[in-house]
């Protein structure tokens, strides 16, 4: 009598969760833009046996955007998931993995990201700011102003913009632009006048940073900038890298 086929693997099975964790690590590890994503739900899993101790796993994953930029050294488990009212972005991923003798490796992955519907957020939170396009003129102006403000008030390496990760605009009751952007250190100091010739330092995690800024346009004009430079870690030999504290600089 042939052996009965194994029961289909459930999405909450520990084996499914291990595969999903490997997939999410792969996706974040191979992304160079935006923010780290974390697992929200395993939508589906299919396992195709290939032979003894060898199988192919197909996963459908639902991911959520976190507040950690992809260049941030913060471990994913310590990253905060963006709330629904923060105009959350969802990632839908199809991932193919191979499991050979219990060793999982990702063979292929394909992801699409979608922002939550503005109408849904409006219903739940009518005053909440909504995501804006990175090339919006108000967004571009807020980022430029914030970076200039930071560079003018801080000694050390002159920081250049790497990318705008996120932006939101609120129109009522106040007109406010919220921006989040990645920066990189250059070979110039902030005191040098000719910043156009400044070159980015070689790719090294210590040369990157991340800034958030809030620009109030109405009723009064105000700018708050907060930059965290990833290189300014306080190493302690008895604590793992994940729990190290990162020095942040605030300017208002």
């Amino acid at each position, binding site marked *: 009598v042939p052996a009965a086929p194994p029961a*289909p693997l*459930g*999405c*909450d099975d520990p084996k*499914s969760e291990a595969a999903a964790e490997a997939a999410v690590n792969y996706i974040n590890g191979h992304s160079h833009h935006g923010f780290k994503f*974390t697992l929200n*739900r395993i939508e*589906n899993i299919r396992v195709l046996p290939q032979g003894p101790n060898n199988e192919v796993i197909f996963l459908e994953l639902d991911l959520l955007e976190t507040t950690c930029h992809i260049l941030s050294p913060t471990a994913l488990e310590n990253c905060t998931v963006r709330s629904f009212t923060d105009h*959350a972005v969802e990632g839908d991923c199809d991932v193919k993995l191979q499991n050979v003798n219990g060793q999982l490796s990702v063979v292929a992955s394909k992801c699409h990201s979608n922002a939550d519907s503005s109408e849904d957020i409006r219903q739940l939170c009518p005053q909440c700011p909504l995501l804006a396009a990175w090339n919006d003129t108000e967004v571009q102006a807020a980022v430029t102003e914030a970076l200039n403000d930071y560079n003018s008030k801080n000694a050390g390496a002159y920081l250049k913009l790497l990318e705008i990760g996120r932006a939101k605009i609120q129109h009522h009751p106040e007109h406010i632009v919220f921006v989040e952007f990645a920066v990189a250190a250059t070979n110039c100091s902030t005191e040098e006048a000719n910043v156009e010739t400044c070159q980015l330092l070689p790719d090294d995690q210590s040369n990157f940073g991340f800034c958030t800024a809030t620009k109030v346009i109405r009723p009064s004009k105000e700018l708050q900038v907060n930059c965290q430079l990833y290189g300014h870690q306080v190493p302690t030999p008895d604590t793992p890298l994940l729990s190290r504290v990162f020095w942040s600089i605030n300017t208002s």
Partner: protein
Amino acid sequence: SVARRAVAEAAQHDKVARPVGFVPLPPPCPGKIRHFKI
């Protein structure tokens, strides 16, 4: 009718197959939502 008999048999079979205290298993997929439904 044939259809009615089939339904009645299926219902009877279902009643017999479930022991006392039977708790239906959750569907294998999709899995639990860890944060919130989007």
